[in-house]
């Protein structure tokens, strides 16, 4: 009898520990999910998307890039690849990658706030995972220098 009650307490203890652990994992995952969305999906979600971690992928709209050199802040608009949707205003701190330019695919990580500005803490230029030569005529080293020249003028 003594043994079985000991086993019982071990079993109960184990179940409690497991439940706590499961609860922690559940909460941990739930709070830290990053959703991959396009601008149109973001608009479709609307206010539900405020505050959630989002990885937004789209195309940089032509003529939308503004660089604030004093505050090291970049602003631009992302649209769906089809270009048909309402653009999402993105604000990103720090320098963009070298290739960043109008019309290029870009992915930003951050949160969308009720003022309809997407605050990004990480900006990536979208290219395939494969390492391959740039398309003929493209000089990757030039992209960035040009961008900078434009900003200075």
């Amino acid at each position, binding site marked *: 009898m003594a043994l079985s009650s000991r086993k019982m307490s071990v079993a109960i203890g184990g179940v409690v520990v497991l439940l706590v*652990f499961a609860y922690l994992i559940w909460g941990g*995952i739930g709070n830290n999910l990053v959703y991959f969305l396009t601008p149109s999906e973001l608009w479709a979600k609307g206010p539900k998307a405020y505050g959630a971690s989002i990885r937004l992928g789209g195309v940089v709209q032509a003529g939308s890039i503004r660089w604030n050199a004093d505050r090291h802040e970049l602003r631009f608009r992302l649209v769906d690849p089809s270009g048909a949707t309402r653009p999402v205003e993105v604000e990103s701190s720090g320098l963009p990658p*070298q290739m960043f330019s109008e019309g290029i695919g870009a992915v930003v990580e951050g949160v969308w706030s009720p003022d309809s500005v997407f605050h990004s803490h990480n900006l990536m230029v979208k*290219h395939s995972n494969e390492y391959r030569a740039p398309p003929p005529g493209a000089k990757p080293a030039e992209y960035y*220098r040009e961008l900078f020249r434009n900003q200075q003028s």
Partner: protein
Amino acid sequence: MNAWIGHIATLMALFVAGGGAAVAFLAGRTGGSDPRYMRAARQAGVAVFVLVLIAFATMERALITHDFSVSYVAQVGSRTTPLFYTIISLWSALEGSILLWALILSGYTALLVRWTRRYYEEPNGDSQVPYALGTLLSVNVFFLLLISWPANPFHILSPAPLDGPGPNALLQNSPFMGVHPPLLYTGYVGMSVPFSLAMGALFAGRLGPEWPKRIRRWTMVPWTFLSLGILAGAWWSYEVLGWGGYWAWDPVENASFMPWLTATAFLHSLMVQERRGMLKMWTITLIVSTFLLTVLGTFLTRSGVLASVHAFTQSPIGPFFLVYLAIVLLGSLALLAWRSETLESEGQFDAVLSRETAFMINNLLFAAFAFVVLLGTMFPLIAEAVRGAKVSVGGPYFNELSVPIALLLVFLAGVGPALPWRKGSLELVRGKFRWPFAAALAVAAVLFVFGVRQSLALLTFGLAVFAFGLLIEEFATPTRARRRNTGESLPVALWRVIASNRRRYGGYIVHSGILVIAVGIAASATFRKEAEWTLRRGSAADIGRYRVQFDSVWAVKEPNRDGVIAATTITTAAQPFAKLYPRLNYYPTAVEPIGTPAVRESLREDLYLVLMAYTQDGQQATLKAIASPLVGWIWLGGGIVALGALLALWRTRAESERQARAIERGGEAARHAAPVH
């Protein structure tokens, strides 16, 4: 020509491995009654190694001689790549990395053959060894199948291209790539050996008292390589990727970390099994899980289902891995169920306050840790399959859950060794814990006085000091007793104490190394400072105690890349401190330039500079600066871990003889015991 030699060698290796596996199982079934089976299996084991070595050497020759008629050379080779990077480019893409995998695996197979020669020379009816060799050879079959068919690096290109693109730019950017993958693979692939030994024991239906000893060394070796490989990867990421961090919970990092967690748990539960005959089922489950996690990890990172820095191109090998994973999973589960009666516990827990309990908690924590990482890594796949939502699990999830688990493990790293087997007493605990506890409190208090307010960091440092104090006591108490009895000097007495039980004290040194790593991680994660400035020539900015002045920027041309280098002068308190030269490298194959951060490393604090951008006239540069304390402790801790592991593995000739005899006696027992077939 090279393509032919390489492909034929891999095909032959595939068939020899298959045949060898079959005869090894036959040798197991017949219990060594016909020595010809075992002889053939052993010869097959060595032959597979020789054949894969030929394939590997052929690929190296093709790479070095720029034989672009070999498909893999055309994929990763280039006439402008420096020789060193040409040699290591063998593992810069999918097919070659599996070739390296096969080489290491067959190398282990040949080692197993050599290590079991005594069994072969004096057969004693123990069928564990033939079954284990059979299992290991069948693992070889799978990887050889991959490089013979879906991931064949030896396709013939006709006409051969004149030049290739060169290896992945990230690989060319740091000599670390010559070290990190081979170390990691030697660890990762090595887990197949303890898995095979475990399967061998299950097939034979007998674990025997010698089993833990036999399997321990075969796990320690890959475990050490895996630990070093993971750290080398962290160091690479720190030195190359330019974000000043060393761990990002990237799927590939997780893939290497999960088997490390289960293998570490296995090494600990093995001790409980050896000492008390308990936890047998659990122990075997852990080593099977370790192997499964290596296969799963390879699947996740090599099939392209998850995006990561390491992900190679989309490849057709995914389904192969899934089928293999299913076979191994179901096969080992069936075997475990079939043999469960041989895995019954012989002992039971005597007291809550005992080393067994510490080991139990340690194991549960490691298992929970592995589960947390596994779930976080797999969740995107699950979410996409179930809800069709594209998500990823952010780093905070891993941090939130792993930090408490890791802290408890730090605590146990000291407490476990301090507790006696079977039953401890409160008086003993009080006596042993007194001064380490006081030291921990004192360190935390001093840090608090000096302005450290981050409770998590204080807790980590306190726990690490506490555990370290307990470990020191384990060395100090016997050394003191020895000096009292023999009058030896302190170093002599300390060395003799360590030499008297190298395995035990080696283990404690490993624990100290882990504590040093934990402190390094806590400090560098908590007290990291980061700044980004655009500076004109000659102007400066401050970060922490450093003043960074931008001097100039210029371009260089190298055979395989162009570089842009910035010169900076660092001063602290108006005193010259260092000159740092962060650079950006432009590779013809990479769309974006890849940086080489300049790092001034010291045990106290690293100053890390990244060149982010520059103007074409060279008047202005944008720099990112990161100052993080104690990062160097992580690498130092890795060295201590390796040292401790070496000490634990090191045996004198007399000791190996003794163990070999013990294992033979186990075999004798097997002959007399009724078979469980």
